[in-house]
């Protein structure tokens, strides 16, 4: 899938490809030897905390910056040295960057007006109207851009980029400035739009929920490096390390030292002397004995029962006490304090809640999970 190695050179398989790309600003390494490929028509995301080099990666594709080392390919061709106005990609800027001295029509038609030969005025206007309709802002053509709301400006910025029919659309935290409800709407709209126009979308975001819900493929970055890429499902189920597991969804970590390992399982001993065992992710090599590692269990993989209830002996079980319960409609979220394992987050679905009536703060409970629900992850 979308990830890649330096050796994959099949023609045009990737719409956008990085080969050994490094970008330095003086002594800061913003992007550190990245190689990746984005398939044509995919919805791809760069995900990572602020300052990890996402924007820089996007700017390397757009052509605002040139790589210090390595090459960027667009549609199978190297774009080293090609200035941004000659690249077949368009960007939606974080703060939209709409031209304040032009109205909505003029902003959207800007890209077409730069073409040689210059298209006829009527033609431009027709395309602008079509594009306005696509972003559901018909009739707004004569408005000043700064009179519009954030969400509307966002759509104008989208329209201004899409009207050029780029091979790839670059979006830099496009929804960050919108409020929560609008953001959710725009996420759905963006996905629909991407399916309709069928071009590659590359999204930059620090919001894991956004990346998970929208992308076909995600590339998780830290300090200029790719930590893992893959489908949302893969990242969620098979994170390569603690960083990824922590970034993608909620997870309980039981930290400790490796005491024993086999080909498929690793046992970790916590500071309090308790030993937990977790599965190794397919293809991963077991961490060395005595090295730091964590056993990770997703909150929805843990089930709760009354403390005195008999347990399926195959499962790992821990005694604890309910600290807090938050009712979330479909689920209830419990915070359970345990001896030796710290506080544990548990997500309990409604169907089970209705069987056992749920638990209240102060109740003694037993939490358990299937052995294969626990993963062992290295710290880096």
């Amino acid at each position, binding site marked *: 899938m979308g990830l890649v190695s330096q050796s994959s050179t099949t023609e045009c398989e990737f719409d956008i490809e990085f080969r050994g790309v490094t970008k330095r600003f003086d002594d800061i390494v913003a992007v550190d030897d990245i190689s990746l490929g984005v398939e044509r028509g995919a919805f791809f995301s760069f995900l990572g905390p602020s300052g990890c080099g996402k924007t820089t990666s996007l700017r390397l594709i*757009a052509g*605002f910056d040139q790589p210090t080392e390595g090459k960027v390919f667009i549609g199978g061709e190297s774009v080293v040295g090609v200035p941004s*106005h000659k690249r077949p990609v368009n960007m939606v800027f974080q*703060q939209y960057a709409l031209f304040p001295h032009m109205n909505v029509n003029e902003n959207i038609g*800007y*890209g077409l007006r730069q*073409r040689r030969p210059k298209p006829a005025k009527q033609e431009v206007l027709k395309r602008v109207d079509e594009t306005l309709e696509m972003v559901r802002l018909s009739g707004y053509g004569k408005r000043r851009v700064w009179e519009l709301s954030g969400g509307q400006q966002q759509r104008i910025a989208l329209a201004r980029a899409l009207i*050029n029919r780029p091979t790839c659309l670059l979006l830099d935290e496009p929804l960050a400035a919108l409020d929560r409800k609008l953001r959710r709407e725009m996420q759905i709209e963006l996905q629909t739009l991407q399916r309709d126009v069928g071009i590659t979308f590359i999204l930059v975001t620090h919001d894991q929920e956004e990346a998970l819900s929208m992308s076909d493929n995600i590339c998780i970055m830290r300090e200029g490096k790719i930590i893992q890429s893959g489908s949302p499902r893969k990242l969620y189920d098979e994170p390569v390390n603690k960083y990824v597991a922590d970034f993608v969804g909620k997870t309980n970590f039981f930290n400790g030292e490796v005491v024993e390992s086999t080909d498929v399982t690793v046992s970790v001993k916590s500071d309090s002397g308790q030993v937990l065992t977790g599965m190794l992710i397919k293809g991963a090599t077991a961490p060395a004995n005595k090295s730091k590692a964590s056993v990770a269990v997703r909150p929805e993989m843990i089930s709760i029962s009354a403390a005195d209830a008999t347990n399926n002996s195959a499962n790992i079980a821990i005694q604890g006490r309910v600290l807090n319960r938050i009712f979330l409609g479909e689920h209830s979220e419990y915070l359970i304090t345990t001896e030796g394992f710290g506080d544990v987050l548990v997500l309990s679905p409604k169907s089970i809640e209705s069987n056992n009536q749920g638990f209240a703060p102060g109740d003694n409970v037993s939490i358990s999970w299937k052995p294969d629900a626990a993963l062992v992850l290295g710290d880096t």
Partner: protein
Amino acid sequence: MKVSNKSNRWLTAALLAPTSVWFVLMLILPLIVILVFSFGERAAVGGYAGGFTLEQYANLPSRLKAFQNTMTIAPAGTLLSLLVAYPLAYYLALRVDRKYKLILLVLVIVPFWTSLLVRTYAWIFILGGRGIPSLLELIGIEGVRLINTPGAVLVGIVYGYLPLMVFPIFVSLEKLDKSLLEASSDLGGSPLKTFMQITIPLSMPGVATGCMLVFILLMGEFLIPAFLGGGKVFFIGNALVDLFLQSRNWPFGAAVSVTLVVIMLITVSLYMRMTLRSNTGRDESLM
């Protein structure tokens, strides 16, 4: 804490008072005096004698040359300053490494630390017989005369007024959102098109402010034409110095002044209307 409406109003009045008094004493009153003088007659020994006559205004054509010079050289000087200042401001705002920006800006102001009088005096030597023309003679070009020509006055103007033009333009280019330039490039705009379609229109407020400052001050200029025009290229300002201080014909001087003020008001308001209309951006702009 609640400040009553009444004491608030008193406070406002008290704060505005010094400015208002200054404004009335130093601007309104003198203007009224000038206006009254312009309808009077010259006293036998010079100065002002009362009366009401339009004679002074009827006499205006005798100073036509000064008006003509001012009305051509002031706009030309403004335009020339703009042409020199824009690239400089552009370079300072968008091209220079941040590290050197401050130093270069200070260098633009440094000349202001010395009086314009002294600096313009220096130009007399540079443009005079023993300056550039004598250098040109060395390479065989003879008989070039620079000093005491409109060209010399223009050079002096551009030199003296450059910072006044550079700064407003620099400020508007500096606060120009750089991502707009990237957006233009991203949408296929070549560097030249980006400059014409984004940079220039968005720096218009600075250009308008700079032009206005320079133009208004130039209309009243007398030092530069006096030094570099050598009595051949004189402005209204020079005529006024002559009328008030030499020939002591105050009423006529007053009439010339009033006419200058009227011309200035008309041009400036026309100009304002023009730039305000063309400037459709979100910027409130101008002064």
